[in-house]
């Protein structure tokens, strides 16, 4: 008799739980409205397809949705997440295995809302938190390009390797609620047209923040626009330090002019740096294809983001290194392994071979980029169809962990650099992590 109230309470709790669960599932699988829902999918004109190709370049879709030396946009790239590996999908217009059956509204929901047909949530490895800022016009053009400018490829998608129950997708809708901003990009009234165009490209298609903005505990970008101080403030990802893109003179773009930034994105190099690490792919596939006006706009916008002296410290200044600076093992290694290209004075041979004096990788406290490029060298930089004449060689076979630590400790404490010494343990860790022959190669999180 006395158990009856408990049963009632328990029943009520279970019922409430079921209702809540049903609500969550409804919420997590509901198909959001698309502003493009009422439009037909007529065969577009060539100009729209061409415009869409440009948006696809700016968005660097090919970086994830293709494998090297395979058909573009056919998917298959493996990306590790903390829960298990996932694979980029086929986004060619193949009816059976690609997105050939997508309406414009379906396409819009995938790109800007992260929702596939039937309401299945995409993993945010797809940078829809950034693409949500794309304009209706650009989404229309992008759709026209993928439907009519891309060759269909029949290649089935690989299922993700995330185990049940972690592979349930509906909780992502809650993540979206917390960490994405609704609506496409809205121009800031106080800013000029160039600034707004730059902001649109950087925050939207360019999805620069995917690498350059630090992430929170839920793997969310800490800010999606300049309204947050952490926006593009630099982050560690995939074994590389993606530098700050704010006006930080040491770890960011503080010493770069707008022309320097535009030149870097157009040619892959300037007097401060040459693209390396993950940025090589972004350059090879994306930024160099943007028009000069757009690159100038991006540069203009980035230069408007203030630096943080607290985080970045006093601005780097070149200091001459006399002969005694080279007396240790690191200095000697530098002279024999590095100086032929980067110069005894650390100034490189700009713009072809980058300086190490004042380099971001030598000024940030994170040694990852310096270690990674020393172990693994640089990827081929292809500018306007011409491969680079000079490339950082991979030294993993030649130098021990201790030697790489010694020479990088030298580089990171000489010529005014103050990134600090490098621990051989950190080299050993990244060496194992980036060994292509190891069973657990580089963890590719997001691009």
């Amino acid at each position: 008799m006395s158990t009856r109230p408990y049963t009632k309470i328990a029943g009520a709790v279970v019922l409430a739980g079921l209702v809540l669960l049903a609500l969550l599932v409804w919420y997590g699988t509901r198909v959001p409205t698309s502003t493009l829902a009422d439009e037909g999918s007529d065969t577009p004109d060539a100009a729209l397809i061409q415009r869409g190709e440009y948006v696809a370049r700016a968005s660097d879709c090919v970086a994830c949705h293709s494998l090297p030396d395979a058909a573009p946009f056919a998917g298959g790239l493996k990306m590790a997440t903390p829960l298990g590996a996932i694979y980029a999908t086929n986004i060619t217009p193949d009816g059976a295995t690609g997105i050939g059956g997508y309406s414009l509204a379906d396409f819009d929901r995938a790109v800007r809302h992260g929702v596939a047909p039937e309401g299945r949530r995409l993993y945010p490895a797809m940078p829809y938190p950034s693409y949500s800022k794309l304009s209706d016009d650009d989404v229309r053009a992008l759709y026209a390009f993928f439907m009519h400018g891309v060759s269909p490829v029949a290649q089935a998608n690989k299922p993700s390797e995330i185990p049940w129950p972690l592979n349930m997708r509906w909780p992502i809708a809650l993540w979206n609620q917390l960490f994405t901003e609704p609506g496409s990009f809205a121009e800031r009234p106080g800013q000029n047209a160039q600034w707004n165009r730059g902001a649109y490209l950087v925050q939207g298609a360019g999805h620069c923040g995917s690498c350059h903005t630090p992430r929170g505990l839920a793997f969310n970008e800490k800010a999606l626009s300049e309204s947050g101080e952490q926006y593009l403030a630099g982050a560690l990802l995939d074994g590389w330090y993606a530098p700050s893109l704010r006006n930080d003179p040491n770890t960011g773009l503080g010493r770069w002019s707008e022309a320097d930034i535009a030149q870097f994105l157009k040619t892959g190099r300037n007097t401060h740096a040459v693209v390396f690490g993950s940025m090589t792919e972004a350059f090879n596939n994306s930024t160099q294809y943007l028009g000069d006006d757009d690159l100038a706009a991006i540069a203009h916008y980035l230069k408007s983001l203030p630096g943080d002296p607290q985080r970045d410290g006093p601005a780097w200044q070149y200091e001459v290194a006399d002969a005694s600076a080279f007396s240790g093992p690191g200095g000697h290694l530098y002279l024999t392994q590095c100086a032929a290209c980067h110069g005894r004075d650390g100034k490189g041979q700009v713009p072809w071979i980058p300086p190490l004096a004042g380099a971001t990788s030598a000024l940030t406290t994170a040694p990852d980029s310096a270690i990674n490029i020393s172990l693994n060298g640089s990827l081929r930089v292809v500018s306007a169809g011409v491969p680079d004449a000079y490339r950082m060689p991979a030294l993993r076979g030649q130098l021990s962990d201790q030697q790489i630590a010694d020479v990088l400790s030298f580089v990171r404490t000489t010529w005014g650099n103050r990134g600090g010494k490098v621990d051989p343990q950190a080299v050993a860790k990244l060496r194992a992590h980036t060994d292509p022959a190891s069973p657990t190669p580089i963890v590719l999180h997001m691009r």
Partner: protein
Amino acid sequence: MELRINQKTYQVDAEADTPLLWVIRDDLGLTGTKYGCGLAQCGACSVLVDGNVVRSCVTPVAGVVGREVTTIEAIEADEVGKRVVAVWVEHQVAQCGYCQSGQVVAATALLKNNPKPDDGQIAAAMVNLCRCGTYNAIQAAVHDLAANLATPAAPAGGNA
């Protein structure tokens, strides 16, 4: 662009980032300078630029405009270079010889900057690779020359 190589002026039509080595060998036909690794690792392509040794495979040609380049072909026009060649012959340093033009250029640069290097300084400066393993002969030759360089050139220094 205009280059100064071995006291001569050349007009060269090349991209700014073309490696100096390619211009020297392919455009100007000065093939004494060798292509080894192409990665600044081996030193076979060493030449002098304003008296300092550089690896021409990683030197963008635009960077040497207005500077004086010396290749192995003209190394004996230099007083120190002439004595290096002589001592190389005296010690019969070369075996296959492929790396030796780079070795001679590196030794010349060392001795021009530091006429009396000690053995540690010689080892630290002579880092070009030699697959025949002539390192001991190189060390001995440079060591001898370092000891004698303070005195005027001996007339009997056999010349190549």
